[in-house]
């Protein structure tokens, strides 16, 4: 251990600059109170989505069995009109009534494939047996067997009310509560707004172009993602 004893002078601070310490602190205090920078909190552009925009929990209501059409104060059954108007040709185009119906159901392109010609208040299976409107799943099951099986198990479709399998509140929606029987594919819809959570509300500057990631895709799905791997990594 080296010890330096060659400077035994008593301590003596520099006296004049020391006078500056107090005022300097005072200036600092003034800066703190009046001139300190404002916090950099980005404005958050959040989106308000009301409950209304979320839509109903079921897409359509179940039709009564048999279905009732109201015109003014009068209630009609299907058979009330179709007793008079028979459609022998089973045509689906050139309709003068029911023009709002778009039949887009694949190979199932005739009204009478599902609607009973004999009893207009009922449905019909392809083998000719009648089905009531309460039996829509059985009707659909004639073609969509696997989906029907899934629906029975609960692996297809939507269940509301309760998750308990024995609960009386539990209600499994039927086919036509979600799907339009005439055009069962769901129409594309506009998505609700995306997240704005990057740095507390700023949308990220130019979101990530897809396929620009590292060359890690084990197999090429959407076209051409692979080639850009090395390039995307460059600066």
């Amino acid at each position: 251990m080296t010890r330096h004893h060659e400077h035994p002078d008593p301590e003596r601070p520099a006296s004049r600059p020391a006078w500056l310490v107090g005022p300097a602190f005072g200036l600092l205090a003034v800066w703190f109170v009046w001139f300190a920078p404002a916090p950099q909190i980005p404005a958050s552009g959040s989106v308000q989505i009301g409950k209304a925009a979320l839509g109903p929990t079921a897409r359509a209501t179940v039709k009564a069995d048999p279905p009732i059409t109201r015109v003014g104060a009068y209630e009609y059954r299907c058979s009330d009109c179709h007793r008079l108007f028979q459609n022998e040709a089973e045509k689906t185009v050139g309709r003068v009534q029911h023009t709002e119906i778009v039949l887009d159901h694949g190979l199932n392109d005739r009204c009478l494939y599902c609607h009973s010609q004999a009893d207009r208040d009922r449905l019909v299976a392809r083998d000719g047996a009648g089905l009531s409107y309460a039996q829509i799943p059985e009707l659909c099951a004639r073609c969509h067997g696997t989906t029907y099986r899934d629906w029975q198990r609960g692996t297809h479709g939507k269940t509301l009310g309760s998750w308990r399998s024995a609960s009386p509140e539990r209600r499994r929606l039927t086919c036509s509560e979600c799907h339009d029987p005439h055009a069962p594919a769901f129409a594309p819809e506009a998505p609700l707004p995306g997240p704005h959570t990057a740095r507390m509300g700023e949308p990220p500057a130019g979101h990530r172009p897809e396929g620009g990631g590292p060359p890690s895709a084990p197999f090429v799905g959407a076209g051409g993602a692979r080639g850009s791997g090395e390039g995307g990594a460059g600066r």
Partner: protein
Amino acid sequence: MTIRIWEGKSAGAPGPCGAEPGFTRRGFLRGATGAVGGMAALAAALSPLRDLPDDAFPSLEEFLQKHYKEMTPAELADAMERVRAEVEGRYGVVPTVRDYPPIEGVRFAFALNLSRCIGCRKCVHACVEENNLSRSPEVQYIRVLEMPRGTMDLARGDHHYDRAEVPDGGHYYLPVQCHQCANPPCVKVCPVGATWQESDGIVVIDYDWCIGCRYCEAACPYWARRFNFAEPTIPDGGLNPDMGYLSNRPRRRGVVEKCHFCLHRTRRGEMPACLEVCPVGARKFGDVLDPQSEVSQILRTKRVLVLKEEVGTLPRFFYYFDERYPRDAGSPGPGEGGEAGP
């Protein structure tokens, strides 16, 4: 040659220290101005605390409140009463705050049908409404990724897709929320035990115990946790007054929150909000211990996968596919609505 800094250069003059006897008046003044200036600067440095909201300081009861698991029923009732009063004070709405203990003999699980999901983000916003999530800054428990077909690499998903219409034929949609892992890394890392797994599998957070270290956020492999960086805001009329103590009661700044499978609903038998709003029935929820439940059926009969199985978290959130191959697979193009219809 050393330059002596601390001990001064010239010799002989008396020392400078404070109230040393025989000490000069000048030295005293110097010290005093320095001390006064220092104190002023110290006080002034704290001046931004003026901006603290009035209710920013925890009340004494809140400060002394015990951990949820250690509270007696009476203490818990007091705590819920305090929450009720706070919510009423802040939002002008009288809520019902209840404690929903887990149901014996139930293990919850979620299943999501990737063949069905159309990426409409309704679940995201229904969750925001149900769970009193902050609208600004925006907090959302569910993230929906638009994934190119042919990959499960999440890095290639798009979080911010903004199309006129979904689904897009070249993509599938992957919603991600808390997976309520059976081996939850977030619970393991929490230094204060503010988050834990309950017997029904739901991982909950005691918002009054969390210290806001965000270690759980770093630990979560599914990016499911959110931190309240600023004071959450809920617009007038946007508050859901049906509250659970461990679920959707309003959070305060500085704590972590996340999806809890809507436990204030599910523990009284109802369905989660995200499931109810799903327009295509892609979400399934239930009790895996009940062989008749929908999730049990899915686990038995469907092609099921979990995200990041390799990290060993054992999620309770499963993804599955229908057997049927979508009819327009491989033909990318907007608005073809491939998976949607049977």
